[in-house]
Every structure is written in C-alpha cells, then in structure tokens.
C-alpha cells in the first residue's frame, strides 16, 4: 500500500492539506490509516477549518481500500465453483488416482516427498504426459535439476501419430530455473498472462509442476536472517493463489531428511507443512522397481492410506 503522497496524482482530493493533517496524527501511508482510530480522526477532522474536504479525503481513502481486498464469497458459491471449475486430473497411474480420490485436483497444491530415486520425477513426467494427452490441458514444467526427459514423455504418451505427438508435446513447456527469484518472477509472469487471458476464455495451463522446489529453497533457508523463510512462505502462498484463482493443479516435489530415531520426514521444516493441501511420502523398496506411496496429509482422505506402484520401462 503506497504512501499517501504518491496517490495525489490519481486522487487530487488527497492534497497537501489533507496529508499534513494526517501526518500530524502519524499517518503517512494507507496502511497507517487502517491502523489508526478512525472515530478519533473524524472528530479531529470536524475541528479543522476545512472539515468538509477532509471528510471527503477520508471517504476516498476508504474507497481505495475497498478495491484492494478480496470479495466475500458464501459457501454455495464455493461449492458451485468447486463442482464446475475444479476437476480432478488423472496422473496416469490408477493406484495413485484411487489413493488420491480422483487424481490431482485443480485448485490444490500436491507435494511429493521422498528420498532420492524413489519415483517422484517419474510420476511428474507421467502426470505431465497424461494431462497433455488425455485432458488436453497445458502443462508448465519447472525443472531445477535438468531432469526433464522428453524421451520419457514421448514413451508415456505411447504409440501415436506423429502429428498428435507433436501437438501434445508442444503443450508441455519446460522452464529451467536455478534460483528462487527467477521462480517468483516466472510465477508472477504466469499470473499476469492468465489475468489477461481470463477474458478470452479457456486454453491455459491446467498443471504446474515444480521439480523440485526444495532445491531452490534449501540454499536460503536456515541462516540467521529470516529472509529465506519469508521467501519460502511467499512462494507457497503465491502457488496456492494461482491454484485457486486460475484452476490450476500444482505439483511440487520435495526431498526428505532424517528425523528422530532414523525415521525420514519431508524437508523444508514446519512452516512449509501448511502450504501443500495434499502430501504424499514415497519410499522405494530397495533393489526393485516398486515404490510405496502413503498419504501424509489430504483435505478429505484419511492419512496413512498407502498404495504400491511399479516403475516400468
């Protein structure tokens, strides 16, 4: 929220007289305005010689604030929105779809956590291929470890006509991102594009995959400054906002660290736990291609449910 003096060009009623009145009460920005006792301010405004203009100024600031906050929505509208706009995208693996009660839900952030080589990237590639082919939706794949393999995607799509393959693979866009600031810039760009596309209709991204978000956050987390955690939380809330407002399913991968007494737990700590709606823990049975998936957190499926799946060639 900007300082009051920068609003003068747009709203001439907030002139220097108004501003000096506010400054005498310690109000320099719109934020300070909200924190102040407005009755006391109105009473003081009455005592001033130009009280009419000051009152108009106060009303103007209120009007500005009204445009900033999100509108109120009631339960029926939310339910309608959920049933109409937010479908479940199949991942391509039946067992995981039934575990997740349909698949990856648009509007939700799903996290895959697991030790190295437990099948997370394979599931991401499979979901990307499936959404592009079956659901004909756009896929944005953010790759931080150079592990996006177009050969594997082509394999998952299967034997199809070259033209079809070309259309499907053209709807999967891969971004190589190596630091958190580039990721934030990219997400804001995505939001900007979707905002300008909303009027034009459908045909945007339905699945956003970030593989892996932990490799972008680990270098900045944990030092003495709180900047790392602040960036992590703001990235998380931006992902949730994108998921909800533009009906995108967001899939992120995380690695694991050792917990107490030899158990493994997902990395990124306690603050990150609140960000994803659904969390899955992967575990590879050593020496084979079978992986165990269990639910750590889900909006409406019980935690602890597990399934097995195999990685084929």
């Amino acid at each position: 929220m900007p300082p009051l003096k920068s609003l003068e060009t747009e709203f001439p009623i907030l002139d220097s007289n108004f501003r000096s009145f506010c400054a005498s009460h310690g109000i320099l920005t719109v934020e300070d305005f909200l924190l102040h006792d407005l009755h006391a301010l109105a009473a003081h405004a009455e005592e001033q010689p130009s009280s009419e203009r000051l009152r108009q100024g106060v009303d103007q600031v209120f009007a500005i604030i009204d445009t900033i906050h999100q509108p109120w929505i009631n339960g029926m509208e939310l339910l309608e929105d959920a049933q109409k706009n937010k479908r479940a995208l199949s991942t391509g693996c039946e067992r995981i779809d039934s575990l997740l009660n349909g698949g990856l839900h648009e509007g939700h952030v799903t996290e895959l956590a697991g030790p190295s080589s437990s099948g997370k990237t394979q599931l991401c590639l499979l979901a990307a291929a499936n959404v592009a082919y079956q659901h004909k939706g756009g896929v944005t794949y953010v790759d931080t470890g150079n592990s996006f393999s177009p050969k594997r995607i082509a394999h998952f799509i299967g034997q199809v006509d070259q033209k079809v393959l070309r259309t499907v693979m053209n709807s999967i866009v891969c971004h190589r991102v190596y630091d958190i600031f580039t990721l934030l810039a990219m997400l804001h760009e995505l939001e900007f594009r979707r905002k300008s596309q909303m009027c034009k209709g459908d045909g945007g991204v339905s699945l956003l995959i970030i593989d892996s978000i932990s490799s972008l956050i680990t270098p900045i987390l944990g030092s003495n400054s709180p900047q790392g955690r602040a960036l992590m939380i703001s990235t998380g809330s931006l992902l949730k906002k994108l998921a909800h407002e533009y009906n995108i399913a967001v899939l992120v991968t995380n690695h694991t660290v050792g917990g107490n007494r030899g158990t493994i737990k997902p990395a990124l700590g306690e603050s990150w736990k609140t960000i994803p709606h659904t969390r899955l823990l992967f575990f590879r049975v050593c020496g084979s291609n079978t992986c165990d998936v269990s639910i750590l957190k889900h909006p409406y499926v019980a935690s602890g449910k597990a399934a097995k799946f195999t990685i084929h060639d």
Partner: protein
Amino acid sequence: MEVGRLPISATQKGKLISAGYTSLSSLSSLSPSLLSRDLSITETEALVIIKHASRGGSPSRSPAINGAQTAWEMLHEEELFTRITTSSADLDNILGGGISCKEVTEIGGIPGIGKTQIGIQLAVNVQIPVDCRGLGGKAIYIDTEGSFMVERVLQIAKACAEEMSANYDFSRNGLPSGQVLMQPQDFLENIICYRVCSYTEQIALVNSLDKIICAHREVKIVIIDSITFHFRQDFDDMALRTRLLSGMALKLMKLAKKFSLAVVLLNQAANKYTEGSLQLSLALGDSWSHACTNRIILYWNGNERYAYIDKSPSLRSRSAPYAVTSSGIRNLVSDSKRMKMM
C-alpha cells in the same frame, strides 16, 4: 509483500518497508535521488533497486519465460547431442551411449574402485575429434584430493591416440587434408587443471567457472574430483554445509544447461542405514543426493568392478562390469581381476 521478491539485500528490503514502499508500482515511477534521500542510501544503490523493480513490474521481459522450450523442441534437440564415451562398451550401453552433456552426473564408490580413472578417461575422451565421433572439446579438471597424476593421463592419452589411428586408418581418405591426428601431448594441452585446498576455494572456483568457460568456449566437460573431500571433515555447522552444497549444486546445474556441457562429480562412499540394514550409498547426506541428475555407484562384485545406475530420469537401473587397465577404462575381460593383497 511485493518488494519481498526483489533480489536485493535484507537490510535494503527492511528500509524500503519501513519507509512505506511495499509494492513495486510505488517504486517504479520514482526518481533515484528521492529514493536515496528517503532511505538514506547512495544514489547508485537506489538506481539498482529501481531497475529491479521496473524489471519485475513489466513481466513480458522476464528471462525465464523467454528461455522456456516445449517438450517437442527438446526431444529433437536431445537426439542431436553427442555423448561422451567412457571407452567401455558395456558402461556406455547402460548410460545410453555415454555421459550426456547438459546433465550433472555423480559417480561414487569406495576407495580404489576407479573413480579418478574414470574421471581421467572422460577428460581424455571428450577431446576425440568430431570426425571420430567424439566432441572435440576441452576439459576442466578440478582436483581436491591431489589424485590427478600427469603420468597416468599421458599413458591413457597415448592409448587413446593409438586406438584412434588404428580405427580410423582406413577412413584417412575421408579426412580433410591438413588434418593431423592428435598426439598424446595435445591431449594434455586441452585439460585445464585446478587444485583446490579448502572448501572456500572450491566454492569460489565454482562461482567463477561461468567466467572461465566464457573465455574457453570449447570446454565440454567439468570434472570435480572429489566434491566431498573438503566438506566431509571438520565441518561444525551442518546447516551451513547443507546451504553451501545446495547452492553449489544449483550453480553447477545452471552451468551444465547454459554451456551445454557435462558435469561429472566424483563422490566418496558412505553407509546408509535403511530398513534395518546398512547399505552402500554416497557421502554428503540425503539433501545432496538430489543435487545430481544421474547417479552411478561403483562397487565390487567378487573380484570384478561393477557400475550401477542408482538414479536417472530416463535410464533404467542396470549394472555393467568394467575394468581398469593400463590403457584406461575398458570392457571387462575375465582375467583382469582384483589384485589379491598377500
């Protein structure tokens, strides 16, 4: 808050927020002198902040979007890339043709298994000219343990040069006139070797690799032997170690993608306790294991050396035997076995 996502220092962000600038739009139309007076910083710093803010506010200039590629384009690009051979056909087989460029490959194993030998072989093989189905590039070898022996490199280079002249003798007519086959000394000239003695030197070197490779564009492989050595002992602050390692991993990934070169990291072995049993894995912990694209673990099976693909997005998990001979890494022939210690 929008200013939170600008790549500036935390103190500058704090100053911006306490002065009331919380959104990018409030910054973009400001003059540097006004901002520097408000925040009591120098005008150059104010100019940098405003530049970042205006770049963030006009999203169409975001570099990340412009560097994006669709999967179809990448599929065709991948087919054009030559891989670096390891001189052992079995090993090349499980690697899908060899070490691929644009990826970070981690190779690790117990001492004596042949990691440095593989590193040296790759540094020589990357120089095989394009006419002989190689890459014709240079190599950067970062030595942290002091195991880079020049005499051994010369030996391997001699063997490679001999093999090249033997295999491509009959195609000599096809070579353009004036092309001279490489001499062993030429191989040595194309390996740029760095010796690092502490972890700060290592991180500083990785940070400056970008500039170094811009000056030597023919470099096609960077080998670090080994990345673990300076991080494994005497590190008190484990959280700092994790941050440093993951930062280094991201920089190496970026390097591999930007210059289309292969990055090979040699790692030491460690034991991991999973499911009630000890298993062989690589050092530096769980968070480092995500830093590479592919991981190959080398191990002994009886008297023979084997390589196992532990992690790869596109390759199957398979093992292949290989042997370390006087001419370098070769296919396993049944009598090249482990020396029995008497």
